[in-house]
Protein backbone atom coordinates (compact mmCIF):
# COMPACT_ATOMS: atom_id res chain seq x y z
CA UNK A 1 0.00 0.00 0.00
CA UNK A 2 2.88 2.34 0.89
CA UNK A 3 4.46 1.48 -2.42
CA UNK A 4 1.22 2.39 -4.22
CA UNK A 5 1.08 5.84 -2.58
CA UNK A 6 4.81 6.32 -3.18
CA UNK A 7 4.30 5.52 -6.86
CA UNK A 8 1.32 7.86 -7.13
CA UNK A 9 3.34 10.63 -5.48
CA UNK A 10 6.31 10.09 -7.78
CA UNK A 11 3.96 9.95 -10.78
CA UNK A 12 2.56 13.41 -9.99
CA UNK A 13 6.03 14.78 -9.30
CA UNK A 14 7.13 13.49 -12.70
CA UNK A 15 4.09 15.15 -14.30
CA UNK A 16 5.19 18.40 -12.63
CA UNK A 17 8.56 18.09 -14.39
CA UNK A 18 6.90 17.10 -17.67
CA UNK A 19 4.66 20.17 -17.73
CA UNK A 20 7.29 22.69 -16.67
CA UNK A 21 8.16 25.30 -19.30
CA UNK A 22 9.79 23.68 -22.35
CA UNK A 23 13.28 24.81 -23.38
CA UNK A 24 12.42 25.69 -26.97
CA UNK A 25 8.94 25.23 -28.40
CA UNK A 26 10.23 24.84 -31.96
CA UNK A 27 12.19 21.71 -30.99
CA UNK A 28 9.14 20.33 -29.20
CA UNK A 29 6.93 20.92 -32.25
CA UNK A 30 9.31 18.84 -34.33
CA UNK A 31 9.24 16.06 -31.75
CA UNK A 32 5.43 16.14 -31.51
CA UNK A 33 5.15 15.48 -35.25
CA UNK A 34 7.67 12.68 -34.93
CA UNK A 35 5.66 11.11 -32.10
CA UNK A 36 2.35 11.51 -33.96
CA UNK A 37 3.87 9.40 -36.70
CA UNK A 38 5.51 6.88 -34.35
CA UNK A 39 2.66 6.43 -31.90
CA UNK A 40 -0.38 7.53 -33.91
CA UNK A 41 -0.04 6.73 -37.59
CA UNK A 42 1.63 3.43 -36.83
CA UNK A 43 -1.43 2.37 -34.82
CA UNK A 44 -3.92 3.00 -37.65
CA UNK A 45 -3.63 -0.42 -39.29
CA UNK A 46 -4.06 -2.33 -36.01
CA UNK A 47 -7.05 -0.16 -35.07
CA UNK A 48 -8.60 -0.62 -38.51
CA UNK A 49 -8.27 -4.39 -38.52
CA UNK A 50 -9.64 -4.86 -35.00
CA UNK A 51 -12.45 -2.32 -35.42
CA UNK A 52 -13.62 -3.83 -38.72
CA UNK A 53 -13.78 -7.32 -37.27
CA UNK A 54 -15.42 -6.25 -34.01
CA UNK A 55 -18.01 -4.18 -35.94
CA UNK A 56 -18.77 -7.22 -38.07
CA UNK A 57 -18.95 -9.57 -35.07
CA UNK A 58 -21.19 -7.20 -33.11
CA UNK A 59 -23.58 -6.91 -36.05
CA UNK A 60 -23.58 -10.67 -36.50
CA UNK A 61 -24.18 -11.32 -32.80
CA UNK A 62 -26.97 -8.75 -32.71
CA UNK A 63 -28.62 -10.36 -35.74
CA UNK A 64 -28.56 -13.75 -34.00
CA UNK A 65 -29.60 -12.45 -30.56
CA UNK A 66 -32.34 -10.13 -31.80
CA UNK A 67 -33.90 -12.81 -33.98
CA UNK A 68 -37.51 -11.99 -33.13
CA UNK A 69 -40.49 -10.78 -35.17
CA UNK A 70 -41.14 -8.18 -32.44
CA UNK A 71 -37.75 -6.50 -32.77
CA UNK A 72 -37.23 -4.44 -35.92
CA UNK A 73 -34.16 -5.30 -37.97
CA UNK A 74 -32.81 -1.77 -37.88
CA UNK A 75 -32.05 -2.37 -34.19
CA UNK A 76 -28.97 -4.31 -35.34
CA UNK A 77 -27.51 -1.17 -36.92
CA UNK A 78 -28.55 0.87 -33.93
CA UNK A 79 -26.93 -1.54 -31.44
CA UNK A 80 -23.75 -1.82 -33.48
CA UNK A 81 -23.44 1.97 -33.61
CA UNK A 82 -24.02 2.35 -29.90
CA UNK A 83 -21.51 -0.37 -28.99
CA UNK A 84 -18.86 1.12 -31.25
CA UNK A 85 -19.35 4.72 -30.11
CA UNK A 86 -19.95 4.24 -26.41
CA UNK A 87 -17.51 1.50 -25.48
CA UNK A 88 -15.59 -0.31 -28.13
CA UNK A 89 -13.90 2.48 -30.08
CA UNK A 90 -12.84 4.44 -27.02
CA UNK A 91 -12.31 1.88 -24.25
CA UNK A 92 -11.42 -1.35 -26.01
CA UNK A 93 -9.20 0.38 -28.57
CA UNK A 94 -7.52 2.19 -25.65
CA UNK A 95 -6.88 -1.15 -23.95
CA UNK A 96 -5.39 -2.53 -27.14
CA UNK A 97 -3.25 0.57 -27.58
CA UNK A 98 -2.15 0.33 -23.95
CA UNK A 99 -0.54 -2.93 -25.02
CA UNK A 100 1.00 -1.63 -28.22
CA UNK A 101 1.81 2.02 -27.51
CA UNK A 102 2.21 1.69 -23.73
CA UNK A 103 4.77 -1.09 -23.90
CA UNK A 104 6.55 0.76 -26.71
CA UNK A 105 6.85 3.95 -24.62
CA UNK A 106 7.89 2.15 -21.43
CA UNK A 107 10.54 0.07 -23.15
CA UNK A 108 11.90 3.02 -25.16
CA UNK A 109 12.25 5.30 -22.13
CA UNK A 110 13.36 2.41 -19.90
CA UNK A 111 16.15 1.54 -22.32
CA UNK A 112 17.17 5.19 -22.41
CA UNK A 113 17.32 5.14 -18.62
CA UNK A 114 19.51 2.04 -18.27
CA UNK A 115 21.83 3.06 -21.11
CA UNK A 116 22.37 6.46 -19.42
CA UNK A 117 20.80 8.43 -22.30
CA UNK A 118 18.53 10.18 -19.80
CA UNK A 119 21.53 11.01 -17.59
CA UNK A 120 23.25 12.42 -20.68
CA UNK A 121 20.28 14.72 -21.34
CA UNK A 122 20.24 15.85 -17.70
CA UNK A 123 23.96 16.61 -17.80
CA UNK A 124 23.40 18.76 -20.88
CA UNK A 125 20.98 20.79 -18.77
CA UNK A 126 17.92 19.42 -20.58
CA UNK A 127 14.74 18.69 -18.62
CA UNK A 128 14.69 15.06 -19.75
CA UNK A 129 11.17 14.37 -18.48
CA UNK A 130 9.71 17.25 -20.44
CA UNK A 131 11.86 16.65 -23.52
CA UNK A 132 11.02 12.95 -23.76
CA UNK A 133 7.51 12.67 -22.36
CA UNK A 134 5.66 15.91 -23.18
CA UNK A 135 5.76 15.42 -26.99
CA UNK A 136 4.44 11.87 -26.56
CA UNK A 137 1.55 13.06 -24.36
CA UNK A 138 0.62 15.92 -26.71
CA UNK A 139 0.86 13.64 -29.75
CA UNK A 140 -1.36 10.91 -28.33
CA UNK A 141 -3.90 13.26 -26.72
CA UNK A 142 -4.31 14.97 -30.10
CA UNK A 143 -4.27 11.84 -32.22
CA UNK A 144 -6.11 9.16 -30.19
CA UNK A 145 -9.49 10.95 -30.40
CA UNK A 146 -9.08 10.92 -34.18
CA UNK A 147 -8.19 7.25 -33.96
CA UNK A 148 -11.38 6.71 -31.91
CA UNK A 149 -13.50 8.38 -34.60
CA UNK A 150 -11.72 6.34 -37.24
CA UNK A 151 -12.43 3.17 -35.27
CA UNK A 152 -16.14 4.05 -35.02
CA UNK A 153 -16.39 4.56 -38.78
CA UNK A 154 -14.46 1.38 -39.62
CA UNK A 155 -16.46 -0.68 -37.10
CA UNK A 156 -19.76 0.51 -38.52
CA UNK A 157 -18.53 -0.21 -42.04
CA UNK A 158 -17.50 -3.68 -40.82
CA UNK A 159 -21.06 -4.25 -39.60
CA UNK A 160 -22.44 -3.04 -42.94
CA UNK A 161 -20.07 -5.36 -44.80
CA UNK A 162 -21.22 -8.41 -42.84
CA UNK A 163 -24.85 -7.47 -43.53
CA UNK A 164 -24.11 -7.00 -47.21
CA UNK A 165 -22.06 -10.14 -47.77
CA UNK A 166 -23.91 -12.67 -45.59
CA UNK A 167 -27.45 -11.54 -46.15
CA UNK A 168 -28.34 -11.76 -42.44
CA UNK A 169 -30.24 -8.54 -42.91
CA UNK A 170 -31.04 -5.99 -45.54
CA UNK A 171 -28.23 -3.40 -45.63
CA UNK A 172 -30.85 -0.65 -45.87
CA UNK A 173 -32.25 -1.70 -42.46
CA UNK A 174 -28.77 -1.57 -41.01
CA UNK A 175 -28.23 1.96 -42.34
CA UNK A 176 -31.62 3.03 -41.01
CA UNK A 177 -30.58 1.75 -37.58
CA UNK A 178 -27.39 3.78 -37.73
CA UNK A 179 -29.43 6.99 -37.83
CA UNK A 180 -32.07 5.85 -35.38
CA UNK A 181 -32.27 7.95 -32.21
CA UNK A 182 -28.77 9.32 -32.73
CA UNK A 183 -27.45 11.49 -29.90
CA UNK A 184 -24.58 13.69 -31.25
CA UNK A 185 -23.22 14.14 -27.71
CA UNK A 186 -22.18 10.49 -27.74
CA UNK A 187 -19.46 11.45 -30.25
CA UNK A 188 -18.18 14.13 -27.86
CA UNK A 189 -18.23 11.50 -25.13
CA UNK A 190 -16.14 9.13 -27.25
CA UNK A 191 -13.65 11.89 -28.11
CA UNK A 192 -13.25 12.93 -24.47
CA UNK A 193 -12.69 9.32 -23.46
CA UNK A 194 -10.14 8.90 -26.23
CA UNK A 195 -8.19 11.94 -25.06
CA UNK A 196 -8.30 10.95 -21.35
CA UNK A 197 -7.27 7.38 -22.08
CA UNK A 198 -4.44 8.62 -24.31
CA UNK A 199 -3.13 10.72 -21.44
CA UNK A 200 -3.40 7.75 -19.06
CA UNK A 201 -1.60 5.33 -21.39
CA UNK A 202 1.22 7.73 -22.27
CA UNK A 203 1.90 9.23 -18.86
CA UNK A 204 1.74 5.95 -16.91
CA UNK A 205 3.88 4.09 -19.44
CA UNK A 206 6.40 6.92 -19.52
CA UNK A 207 6.51 6.91 -15.72
CA UNK A 208 7.18 3.14 -15.63
CA UNK A 209 10.00 3.53 -18.16
CA UNK A 210 11.48 6.67 -16.63
CA UNK A 211 12.05 5.04 -13.26
CA UNK A 212 13.27 1.70 -14.62
CA UNK A 213 16.62 0.69 -13.22
CA UNK A 214 18.95 -2.23 -13.59
CA UNK A 215 19.18 -4.23 -16.78
CA UNK A 216 17.15 -5.34 -19.78
CA UNK A 217 15.04 -7.63 -17.56
CA UNK A 218 13.90 -4.56 -15.66
CA UNK A 219 12.95 -2.84 -18.90
CA UNK A 220 10.74 -5.83 -19.71
CA UNK A 221 9.18 -5.66 -16.25
CA UNK A 222 8.63 -1.91 -16.60
CA UNK A 223 6.89 -2.55 -19.89
CA UNK A 224 4.59 -5.15 -18.32
CA UNK A 225 3.86 -2.84 -15.37
CA UNK A 226 2.99 -0.07 -17.82
CA UNK A 227 0.43 -2.19 -19.66
CA UNK A 228 -1.16 -3.53 -16.45
CA UNK A 229 -1.31 -0.17 -14.67
CA UNK A 230 -2.60 1.66 -17.78
CA UNK A 231 -5.29 -0.96 -18.39
CA UNK A 232 -6.57 -0.88 -14.81
CA UNK A 233 -6.55 2.92 -14.73
CA UNK A 234 -8.41 3.05 -18.05
CA UNK A 235 -11.15 0.83 -16.62
CA UNK A 236 -11.45 2.97 -13.50
CA UNK A 237 -11.68 6.16 -15.55
CA UNK A 238 -14.12 4.51 -17.96
CA UNK A 239 -16.45 4.04 -15.01
CA UNK A 240 -15.90 7.58 -13.74
CA UNK A 241 -16.38 9.20 -17.17
CA UNK A 242 -19.46 7.12 -17.91
CA UNK A 243 -20.99 8.28 -14.63
CA UNK A 244 -20.02 11.93 -15.18
CA UNK A 245 -20.96 12.17 -18.86
CA UNK A 246 -23.95 9.82 -18.90
CA UNK A 247 -25.26 9.87 -22.47
Amino acid sequence: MISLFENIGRYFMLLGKVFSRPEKLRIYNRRIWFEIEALGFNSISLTAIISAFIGAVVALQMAITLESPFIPKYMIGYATREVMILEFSSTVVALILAGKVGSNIASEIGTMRITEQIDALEIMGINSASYLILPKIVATVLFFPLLTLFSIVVGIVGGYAIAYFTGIMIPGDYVEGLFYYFEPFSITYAIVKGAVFAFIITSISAYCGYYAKGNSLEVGRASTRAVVASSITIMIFDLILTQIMRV
Partner: protein
Amino acid sequence: MIRADHISKTFEGRTVLNDISVEFDTGKTNLIIGRSGSGKTVLLKSLVGLHDVDSGRIFFDDVCYTDLDFRGRKSIRKDIGMIFQGGALLDSSTVRENVRLPLDLFTEMSESEKRDRVDFCLSRVRLTGADHLYPSELSGGMVKRVAIARAIVLNPRYLFCDEPNSGLDPQTSVVIDNLIHDITKEFNITTIINTHDMNSVMEIGEKIVYIHEGHKWWEGSKDDILLSENPELNDFVFASAMAKRAKSVAR
Protein backbone atom coordinates in the same frame (compact mmCIF):
# COMPACT_ATOMS: atom_id res chain seq x y z
CA MET B 1 38.96 23.96 -10.98
CA ILE B 2 36.55 21.52 -9.37
CA ARG B 3 36.77 20.89 -5.64
CA ALA B 4 35.02 18.32 -3.47
CA ASP B 5 35.00 19.22 0.19
CA HIS B 6 34.39 16.34 2.66
CA ILE B 7 31.71 14.67 0.57
CA SER B 8 29.98 11.48 1.69
CA LYS B 9 27.32 9.38 0.04
CA THR B 10 25.38 6.40 1.36
CA PHE B 11 23.11 4.02 -0.55
CA GLU B 12 20.64 2.00 1.55
CA GLY B 13 22.88 2.09 4.60
CA ARG B 14 26.09 1.32 2.68
CA THR B 15 28.65 4.11 2.68
CA VAL B 16 30.00 4.44 -0.84
CA LEU B 17 31.89 7.72 -0.47
CA ASN B 18 33.45 8.48 2.89
CA ASP B 19 34.56 12.05 3.62
CA ILE B 20 36.36 12.64 0.34
CA SER B 21 38.15 15.94 -0.24
CA VAL B 22 39.92 16.46 -3.53
CA GLU B 23 40.72 19.20 -6.01
CA PHE B 24 40.88 18.79 -9.78
CA ASP B 25 42.98 21.31 -11.68
CA THR B 26 42.04 23.38 -14.71
CA GLY B 27 43.74 22.50 -17.99
CA LYS B 28 44.81 19.09 -16.72
CA THR B 29 43.63 15.55 -17.31
CA ASN B 30 42.67 14.44 -13.80
CA LEU B 31 42.16 10.71 -13.36
CA ILE B 32 40.11 8.85 -10.77
CA ILE B 33 41.24 5.25 -10.47
CA GLY B 34 40.17 2.38 -8.25
CA ARG B 35 38.83 -1.15 -8.25
CA SER B 36 35.33 -2.02 -9.42
CA GLY B 37 32.93 -1.07 -6.64
CA SER B 38 35.41 1.29 -4.98
CA GLY B 39 33.06 4.26 -5.47
CA LYS B 40 34.74 6.11 -8.33
CA THR B 41 31.65 6.19 -10.58
CA VAL B 42 29.55 7.42 -7.66
CA LEU B 43 32.18 10.09 -7.05
CA LEU B 44 32.06 11.19 -10.68
CA LYS B 45 28.25 11.21 -10.77
CA SER B 46 28.16 13.10 -7.48
CA LEU B 47 30.49 15.73 -8.89
CA VAL B 48 28.20 16.34 -11.88
CA GLY B 49 25.09 16.28 -9.70
CA LEU B 50 23.52 13.04 -10.93
CA HIS B 51 23.70 11.90 -7.29
CA ASP B 52 23.06 14.32 -4.43
CA VAL B 53 25.71 13.95 -1.74
CA ASP B 54 24.61 13.34 1.87
CA SER B 55 27.17 15.76 3.27
CA GLY B 56 29.99 17.97 2.05
CA ARG B 57 30.13 20.54 -0.73
CA ILE B 58 31.23 20.62 -4.35
CA PHE B 59 32.66 23.73 -5.98
CA PHE B 60 32.93 24.55 -9.68
CA ASP B 61 35.57 27.30 -9.59
CA ASP B 62 34.12 29.62 -6.94
CA VAL B 63 30.52 28.48 -7.21
CA CYS B 64 29.21 26.04 -4.63
CA TYR B 65 27.27 23.60 -6.83
CA THR B 66 25.66 21.75 -3.92
CA ASP B 67 23.99 24.95 -2.68
CA LEU B 68 22.39 25.74 -6.05
CA ASP B 69 18.74 25.11 -6.90
CA PHE B 70 17.60 23.42 -10.12
CA ARG B 71 17.88 26.62 -12.19
CA GLY B 72 21.34 27.44 -10.84
CA ARG B 73 22.60 23.94 -11.52
CA LYS B 74 21.17 24.08 -15.01
CA SER B 75 23.35 27.09 -15.83
CA ILE B 76 26.46 25.21 -14.62
CA ARG B 77 25.44 22.08 -16.50
CA LYS B 78 25.61 23.98 -19.76
CA ASP B 79 29.34 24.29 -19.06
CA ILE B 80 29.69 20.56 -18.45
CA GLY B 81 30.39 17.94 -21.08
CA MET B 82 30.18 14.29 -20.14
CA ILE B 83 31.23 11.13 -21.92
CA PHE B 84 29.42 8.08 -20.58
CA GLN B 85 30.79 4.56 -20.47
CA GLY B 86 28.46 3.34 -23.23
CA GLY B 87 28.43 6.65 -25.10
CA ALA B 88 24.76 7.32 -24.18
CA LEU B 89 23.96 8.57 -27.67
CA LEU B 90 20.27 8.99 -28.46
CA ASP B 91 19.39 5.85 -30.43
CA SER B 92 16.67 7.50 -32.49
CA SER B 93 18.94 10.33 -33.69
CA THR B 94 21.74 10.37 -36.24
CA VAL B 95 25.31 11.34 -35.37
CA ARG B 96 24.67 14.88 -36.58
CA GLU B 97 21.41 15.19 -34.61
CA ASN B 98 23.12 13.90 -31.46
CA VAL B 99 25.92 16.42 -31.68
CA ARG B 100 23.57 19.23 -32.69
CA LEU B 101 21.00 18.73 -29.89
CA PRO B 102 22.64 21.05 -27.30
CA LEU B 103 22.97 23.76 -29.97
CA ASP B 104 19.28 23.45 -30.85
CA LEU B 105 18.21 23.76 -27.25
CA PHE B 106 20.60 26.28 -25.77
CA THR B 107 21.86 28.59 -28.49
CA GLU B 108 20.37 31.11 -30.89
CA MET B 109 22.75 30.12 -33.69
CA SER B 110 21.53 30.20 -37.27
CA GLU B 111 21.21 26.95 -39.22
CA SER B 112 24.50 27.54 -41.05
CA GLU B 113 26.34 28.36 -37.81
CA LYS B 114 25.04 25.17 -36.23
CA ARG B 115 26.05 23.16 -39.29
CA ASP B 116 29.55 24.64 -39.19
CA ARG B 117 29.91 23.99 -35.46
CA VAL B 118 28.78 20.37 -35.80
CA ASP B 119 31.12 19.89 -38.78
CA PHE B 120 33.99 21.34 -36.77
CA CYS B 121 33.36 19.05 -33.77
CA LEU B 122 33.00 15.98 -35.98
CA SER B 123 36.20 16.81 -37.84
CA ARG B 124 37.92 17.37 -34.48
CA VAL B 125 37.13 13.76 -33.52
CA ARG B 126 37.88 12.62 -37.07
CA LEU B 127 34.34 11.56 -37.92
CA THR B 128 33.67 13.67 -40.99
CA GLY B 129 31.35 11.80 -43.31
CA ALA B 130 29.71 9.72 -40.58
CA ASP B 131 27.12 12.36 -39.69
CA HIS B 132 24.18 10.53 -41.30
CA LEU B 133 24.75 7.26 -39.41
CA TYR B 134 22.72 6.07 -36.43
CA PRO B 135 24.42 4.89 -33.21
CA SER B 136 23.58 1.26 -34.02
CA GLU B 137 25.67 1.59 -37.20
CA LEU B 138 28.80 2.78 -35.37
CA SER B 139 31.73 0.86 -33.90
CA GLY B 140 32.57 1.22 -30.19
CA GLY B 141 35.37 3.68 -30.91
CA MET B 142 33.15 5.77 -33.16
CA VAL B 143 30.43 5.92 -30.49
CA LYS B 144 32.99 7.28 -28.01
CA ARG B 145 34.19 9.85 -30.53
CA VAL B 146 30.63 11.03 -31.24
CA ALA B 147 30.12 11.29 -27.47
CA ILE B 148 33.25 13.45 -27.28
CA ALA B 149 32.01 15.64 -30.15
CA ARG B 150 28.67 16.09 -28.39
CA ALA B 151 30.39 16.84 -25.10
CA ILE B 152 32.51 19.64 -26.58
CA VAL B 153 29.94 21.19 -28.92
CA LEU B 154 28.99 23.93 -26.44
CA ASN B 155 32.62 24.69 -25.53
CA PRO B 156 32.39 23.25 -22.01
CA ARG B 157 34.64 24.37 -19.18
CA TYR B 158 34.44 20.99 -17.46
CA LEU B 159 34.68 17.57 -19.09
CA PHE B 160 33.78 14.34 -17.30
CA CYS B 161 34.57 10.93 -18.77
CA ASP B 162 33.28 7.70 -17.25
CA GLU B 163 35.59 4.90 -18.37
CA PRO B 164 35.99 6.22 -21.91
CA ASN B 165 38.15 3.24 -22.92
CA SER B 166 35.97 0.41 -21.70
CA GLY B 167 35.33 -2.13 -24.42
CA LEU B 168 37.89 -0.66 -26.81
CA ASP B 169 41.02 -2.26 -28.22
CA PRO B 170 44.37 -0.85 -27.00
CA GLN B 171 45.02 1.15 -30.16
CA THR B 172 41.60 2.80 -30.19
CA SER B 173 41.99 3.47 -26.46
CA VAL B 174 45.16 5.42 -27.15
CA VAL B 175 43.34 7.43 -29.85
CA ILE B 176 40.53 8.29 -27.41
CA ASP B 177 43.00 9.14 -24.62
CA ASN B 178 45.00 11.43 -26.85
CA LEU B 179 41.86 13.07 -28.17
CA ILE B 180 40.62 13.85 -24.65
CA HIS B 181 44.07 15.04 -23.59
CA ASP B 182 44.46 17.29 -26.67
CA ILE B 183 40.98 18.79 -26.22
CA THR B 184 41.74 19.48 -22.56
CA LYS B 185 44.86 21.41 -23.49
CA GLU B 186 43.38 23.11 -26.54
CA PHE B 187 40.34 24.53 -24.73
CA ASN B 188 41.87 24.69 -21.21
CA ILE B 189 39.14 22.45 -19.77
CA THR B 190 39.04 20.85 -16.33
CA THR B 191 38.87 17.20 -17.31
CA ILE B 192 38.11 14.34 -14.93
CA ILE B 193 38.42 10.79 -16.22
CA ASN B 194 37.25 7.74 -14.39
CA THR B 195 39.28 4.77 -15.58
CA HIS B 196 40.60 1.27 -15.00
CA ASP B 197 43.00 1.49 -17.88
CA MET B 198 46.60 1.65 -16.67
CA ASN B 199 47.79 2.68 -20.12
CA SER B 200 45.67 5.82 -19.75
CA VAL B 201 47.10 6.42 -16.29
CA MET B 202 50.67 6.28 -17.53
CA GLU B 203 49.97 8.16 -20.80
CA ILE B 204 47.76 11.12 -19.87
CA GLY B 205 47.39 11.10 -16.07
CA GLU B 206 48.57 14.50 -14.91
CA LYS B 207 46.82 14.21 -11.59
CA ILE B 208 45.69 10.83 -10.29
CA VAL B 209 43.33 10.13 -7.39
CA TYR B 210 43.10 6.56 -6.11
CA ILE B 211 39.79 5.61 -4.46
CA HIS B 212 39.76 2.57 -2.22
CA GLU B 213 36.60 1.35 -0.45
CA GLY B 214 35.00 4.79 -0.63
CA HIS B 215 38.04 6.65 0.74
CA LYS B 216 40.55 8.80 -1.08
CA TRP B 217 43.57 6.58 -0.55
CA TRP B 218 46.24 8.33 -2.54
CA GLU B 219 46.82 11.21 -4.96
CA GLY B 220 49.75 12.26 -7.10
CA SER B 221 51.09 12.30 -10.64
CA LYS B 222 51.91 9.38 -12.95
CA ASP B 223 55.58 9.72 -11.98
CA ASP B 224 54.68 9.50 -8.28
CA ILE B 225 52.92 6.17 -8.90
CA LEU B 226 56.22 4.54 -9.87
CA LEU B 227 57.77 5.65 -6.59
CA SER B 228 54.78 5.05 -4.35
CA GLU B 229 55.11 2.62 -1.45
CA ASN B 230 51.34 2.54 -0.89
CA PRO B 231 50.57 -1.21 -0.88
CA GLU B 232 46.90 -0.97 -1.96
CA LEU B 233 47.81 1.37 -4.82
CA ASN B 234 50.66 -0.88 -5.94
CA ASP B 235 48.44 -3.97 -5.78
CA PHE B 236 45.89 -2.21 -7.96
CA VAL B 237 48.16 -0.50 -10.49
CA PHE B 238 50.79 -3.22 -10.77
CA ALA B 239 48.45 -6.19 -10.45
CA SER B 240 50.21 -8.54 -12.84
CA ALA B 241 53.67 -10.09 -12.34
CA MET B 242 54.87 -8.37 -15.50
CA ALA B 243 53.73 -4.97 -14.25
CA LYS B 244 55.48 -5.57 -10.91
CA ARG B 245 58.71 -6.38 -12.76
CA ALA B 246 58.27 -3.25 -14.90
CA LYS B 247 57.92 -1.15 -11.77
CA SER B 248 61.04 -2.57 -10.19
CA VAL B 249 62.98 -1.92 -13.40
CA ALA B 250 61.64 1.63 -13.60
CA ARG B 251 62.68 2.32 -10.04
